[in-house]
């Protein structure tokens, strides 16, 4: 399974990239597990994703909770709490 990852705001800055394609192993079935798997890859990812309490996610452009299932997801975004308006 490949997933298009998108990063916004300080997550993007700390990741050092705005997007990437990833292929997590089958054991990674939730957003939280995906974040753990991404963070374990390299120092930038670990730093960008360290503050789990301030991370939010969208699966295929819809906001979801961290325990959301990612089966079949094509696009997953990680970002801080939103501050529009």
């Amino acid at each position: 399974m490949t997933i298009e990852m998108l990063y916004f705001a300080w997550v993007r800055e700390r990741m050092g990239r705005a997007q990437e394609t990833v292929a997590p192993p089958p054991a990674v079935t939730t957003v939280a597990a995906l974040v753990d798997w991404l963070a374990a890859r390299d120092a930038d990812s670990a730093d960008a994703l360290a503050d789990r309490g301030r991370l939010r996610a969208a699966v295929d452009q819809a906001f979801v909770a961290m325990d959301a299932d990612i089966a079949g997801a094509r696009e997953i975004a990680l970002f801080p709490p939103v501050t529009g308006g």
Partner: protein
Amino acid sequence: MIRIHVGTDPIDPAAELALAEAAAGAGAVATFTGLVRADDGVGTLELEHYPGATEAALHRVAAAAAKRWSLRAATIVHRVGPMAPGTRIVFVAASAAHRAAALEACAYLIDRLKTDAPFWKREIRDGEARWVEARATDTDAAARWEA
């Protein structure tokens, strides 16, 4: 009539208000305009967003308001990119037959957009950039609209 626009172009409230007023059956139009404040030392405000997801989220917010208050028109226009103090960041309008619906729906539009749409603000003061923190009061304001 639902109108959603997200872009780097300046917001034109007169044009947006005219559209909301022109909706059939409109007797009352309430609007809200958010500005980059000029009095707290911010030199530039930058707005980042999640293209596609933003427009979809704003459309959901506007459609929910239109249904709940039987609106004749619901408008959400949000600017993105760098903005100087005094610049309009966001404009929302709710057009209804009577005033109570227009006023409540307008408050709903701006409250919900603050929590439901993927925008991020970065302030630049004296050359230093800082991401704006989300506020609990925004979550509370949005939550009061839960049925």
